[in-house]
């Protein structure tokens, strides 16, 4: 028993030593804040009802004037890439800790703080717009916090019939007579990765180069990300003209849920996954 006490003492001593080592001036980790700015070109979007005079309006390449009353999207699978190319994943397998709903009507959601990011110099950020198929199952038992945030009545980022999350939700008005538009995206794939048996995968992986390296250490940098919703209708992949009706080509209402029409918006928001891996996103600055 005498020996046992010695071991105990030694363990306590070593614990104390470990906790001491994080007290110096070069912490092993720090926060990184992602600050989202949702814009039409370079103007930050102000939301508004149909006849709002304060809402920010935009005009598409096809000449359609439009403005938004609601703007939300899901960010997940965040990875920071070090200057040596190593990728540092941020809770990529835990939606509660690594995914968030950006909601233009809630200022607090526009800044997402990554905590305990390992000290290093980072040159690039990667993240997902939406949720990867294997995590997109509305698993409330596994990720109760994200489920609650996405499912809240004033957020409504769930697609019940597809048992998945909405990835983007844009409500608004278009043309001079302010017709309703309602653009929702989400995945409908069934099966497992590599062998999807039906449906579309609306998850998009985004890769953005930082304007200057973000140095995590004694300081907690801020990465400013612009999401330019001008690209929604006037994107790199598709130029979209909105139309209202019940035909399969009509796309302004949630019968956008005809996945064929939906994918055009998905590609404009988040890129097509091949020639375009930035979609509407860009990094406008890094504050170290």
């Amino acid at each position: 028993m005498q020996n046992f006490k010695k071991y105990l003492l030694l363990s306590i001593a070593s614990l104390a030593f470990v906790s001491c080592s994080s007290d110096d001036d070069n912490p092993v980790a720090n926060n990184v804040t992602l600050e989202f700015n949702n814009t039409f070109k370079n103007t930050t979007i102000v939301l508004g009802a149909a006849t709002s005079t304060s809402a920010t309006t935009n005009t598409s390449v096809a000449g359609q004037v439009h403005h938004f009353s609601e703007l939300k999207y899901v960010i997940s699978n965040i990875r920071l890439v070090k200057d040596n190319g190593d990728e540092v994943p941020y809770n990529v397998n835990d939606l509660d800790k690594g995914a968030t709903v950006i909601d233009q009507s809630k200022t607090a959601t526009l800044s997402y703080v990554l905590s305990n990011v390992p000290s290093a110099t980072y040159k690039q950020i990667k993240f997902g717009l939406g949720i990867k198929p294997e995590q997109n199952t509305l698993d409330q038992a596994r990720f109760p916090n994200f489920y609650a945030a996405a499912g809240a009545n004033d957020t409504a980022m769930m697609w019940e019939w597809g048992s998945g999350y909405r990835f983007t939700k844009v409500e608004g008005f278009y043309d001079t007579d302010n017709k309703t538009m309602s653009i929702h995206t989400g995945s409908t794939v069934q099966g497992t990765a590599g062998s999807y048996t039906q449906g579309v995968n609306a998850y998009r992986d985004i890769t953005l180069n930082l304007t200057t390296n973000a140095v995590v250490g004694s300081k907690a940098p801020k990465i400013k990300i612009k999401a330019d919703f001008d690209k929604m209708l006037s994107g790199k992949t598709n130029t979209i003209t909105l139309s209202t009706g019940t035909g399969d080509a009509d796309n302004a209402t949630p019968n956008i849920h005809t996945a064929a029409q939906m994918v055009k918006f998905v590609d404009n928001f988040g890129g097509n996954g091949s020639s375009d891996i930035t979609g509407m996103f860009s990094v406008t600055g890094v504050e170290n």
Partner: protein
Amino acid sequence: MKKIAGFIFLLLLFASCNSDDSDMISIDNPEISLNIPSGFPELNSFVSLNKPTKYGVELGEKLFSEKRFSADNTISCSSCHIQANAFTDQHAQAIGIEGRIGLRNTPSIQNLAFMKFYNWDGSKLQLETQPLVPIITHEEMNSSILEVIGKIKDDAVYKDLFRKAFGDENVTPERIYKSIAQFEYTLISANSKYDKVKRNTASFTESELQGYQTFQQKCASCHSSELFTDQSFRNIGFPLNTDTNEAGRGRVTGIAADFMSFRVPTLRNIEYTAPYGSFGQFTTLKSVLDYFDSGVLDAENLDPIFKENGKRIPLTEQEKINLIAFMKTLSDTDFVKN
């Protein structure tokens, strides 16, 4: 040092004793062998991953009628899936909590173990993934799986059933989904007059026989096999549901040809499942046949069988009478009563 080793050894022994205890409670929960009717297609491959057991099915059946699945404890699965109607509800579109009206007509629940697709649009391929949908849908139960578990987990009857079905009292989402699917896998309908005729233990009346012949000529290319559906998705020019959420299978696949296409429904127990169509467009079988006879709506992706035949299925009044007589031979009175 020896003392420590001994202590650790003792600890390990103690721990292993503990887990032995729970193993000692063995429950007899035999698998239920599904009685597969002759001529039926192969089982959906997911059935082998969740084979029905005695208590799994018993639990699933109880959960199927559990009103606490809904936010206000008023709606269970069996509120819309009523056995007497071959597990449909006689409404054009399903009605959920607070009288909210759903997008589509409640589909029948029968022979699901043999189906490759579930729902009108085939959005689900595995039955275990379906029960969550009505639980969380605003127009149906408007609840969540953890809310449901919170309401039932301390219920002594459920504790007993979960232990018998799964080995311990833990009420988990997966166990709820699995037991409901197990119950549904056992709902096999294959004892109608038609089946008895096939087995040479009954015979058609003259009208039923005439109807069967017309059926084979004019209906069986879609309503094929012993399931009376080829499980394909087709746009057959039925009146359109103008709800902006409706796009038929198109909203699942993103394929233009699937726009407003729906799964060919089974004709088994069709007598009990009125009204008909994806949102209950037709109140009677006669009105469906009249519609086919007078002509369906055109569409770019209208099914080729209609496109190539003047967008209609011509039927005489006598043929309609006989067809309905035949369709009623697909009624399985045991299935809707037991």
